[in-house]
Structure formats: structure tokens, C-alpha cells
């Protein structure tokens, strides 16, 4: 009996490759999140009572009030004028502490705006080296 000769294809079947890879893409697209992974870093000073000797008179106090109002040493100031206000003071004393003190009812966003302005000072020729954001507990503990 003569058997029919079977020919084996020498091609690798790749037609389903695109389907598989599309499924993988769909998986990654659904599970992937373009998460916000950037922000302003804030080095926390070590809580050491001996270093908490900043005198209010020697520092610049930036107050943040509700409604996006800002004050520098008790006088109302625009956000974009803060660096101009600090420039002469920091030229005299580059290590002058700048204290951000937001009102409890001020928005967090406004506090971050002030912090961002101070951090950007380096690029604008006014490097603020000593930024402090004391918490209410620290203020009560060390200032009063």
C-alpha cells in the first residue's frame, strides 16, 4: 500500500503573534497608571532642642493667610515680590532663616506656592538656604 507523502511546512506560524501581543498591550494599558511621581522635597530638620534657637527678630516671617493673602514680616506682599523683598536681606546674611507660617485655615496649596517660590530663588539669584516650616506644636514649644 502506498502511503500519501505528507509535506511539512517549514514556516513558523506567526499569524497569532499580533493577537497575543495586543492582549499584552491591553493588559499593560489597563493596569498602568501615569502616577504623579514628582514633587518638592523637604528635608526635615532633626528634632534637637539645642538647634532650635532661631530668634524671631533675626528671621524673615512669611505668613500665609486664608484666601491666598501673604505677609512678609507683617506687611502684605504679592507672591512674586517675595524674592525681591528677601534679596537685600539675604545679601547681608545668606543664612538668614526664612520661616513659612501658614494660618491653620489657609490652604495647603498656598503654602506650597510660597515654598516653591523660595526654592526657585536659587535660579533667580536669591538662594534661600534656610527655609523653615515649623509646626504649631514646635511654635508653641519653642517660641512661647
Amino acid at each position, binding site marked *: 500500500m502506498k502511503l500519501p507523502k505528507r509535506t511539512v511546512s517549514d514556516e513558523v506560524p*506567526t*499569524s497569532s*503573534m*499580533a493577537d497575543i*501581543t*495586543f492582549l*499584552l*498591550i491591553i493588559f*499593560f*494599558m489597563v*493596569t*498602568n*497608571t*501615569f*502616577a*504623579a*511621581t*514628582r*514633587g*518638592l*522635597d*523637604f*528635608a*526635615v530638620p*532633626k*528634632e534637637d532642642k539645642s538647634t532650635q534657637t532661631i530668634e524671631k527678630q533675626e528671621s524673615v516671617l512669611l505668613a*500665609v493667610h486664608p484666601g491666598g493673602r501673604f505677609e512678609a514680616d507683617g506687611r502684605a506682599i504679592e507672591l512674586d515680590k517675595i524674592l525681591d523683598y528677601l534679596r537685600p536681606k539675604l545679601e547681608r546674611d545668606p543664612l538668614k532663616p526664612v520661616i513659612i507660617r*501658614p*494660618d*491653620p*485655615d*489657609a*490652604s*495647603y*496649596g*498656598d*503654602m*506650597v*506656592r510660597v*515654598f*516653591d517660590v523660595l*526654592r*526657585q530663588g536659587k535660579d533667580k539669584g536669591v538662594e534661600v538656604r534656610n527655609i523653615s*516650616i515649623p*509646626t*504649631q*506644636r*514646635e511654635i508653641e514649644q519653642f517660641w512661647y
Partner: protein
Amino acid sequence: MRLKARQKPNAVVPTASMADIVFLLIIFFVLTFNVDVDKAQVMLPKTGLRFEVPKKSAVISVTEAGQIRVSSGEETSTTVSGYEDVLAFAAEQVARDAEKAFILKADARVPYQTIDRILDSLKQARASTIYLLSDQETVEGAG
């Protein structure tokens, strides 16, 4: 004059390069793959200066409604009931890794007193670095 025989157009769509393109897309998604440990919807504050936060940092999120969630950066965030829990969580993270970075993912509209209490908890737990998560400030939004 004898005209040339009409060429029959090939009816097959060439798909050989499809897999290559799709593989490139897969490589892109694999490289950018990032599972968000905290799904809280917040309107982040906008800043001009932004730095990349370290991977696997602990996350503390605060929504506009004041709901606080924490995550060690490796598992999905869980809701905490008060600032004492934030302090306990931060202390535990710092005890495991003294250089652990913390990400504060807070809504820009949250009253500062909430943030103040959280920052205070982190300071008491002796956290070394805190990242205030933000969105990029655009030129229109700068004013």
C-alpha cells in the same frame, strides 16, 4: 499595439511588521509600568520646581474631605482614623528604614491645619525627607 496585461493588485494586507510595532509598544508600557499604591483622587498643588520621588517611598494622602490614607509604598493604601495612627505608621516605617522617604499627596484645598498635624507626626517619627507631591505649574497657571 499590444497592451500589457493588467497587473492584479495583491489582496493581502502585509501584517509582518505588525508584531514589531506591537512589541515596541509593549516595551514602552513595560518600562513605564507603575502601579499606583494610592488611588485617592486629589487636586495636587502646582509647582514650578519638581523632583522625582524615590521609588517605594511611603505615601500619605489627604483628600479634600480630609480622609487620610497611608501606604508603605509596597501595598495599597489604607484609611487611618486619626493623626495618632499617622504617627504610629511613620514611626514603624522609620524603625524599619531610617532613611525612608515619605510622600505627602495632599489636595491643594485642604486646610493647612491638617497638613500641620501630619508634618508634625512625621517630624516626631524622625522622618528624614518628605516630598510634597505636586503637578507641574503651567505658564497660564503661574500668575
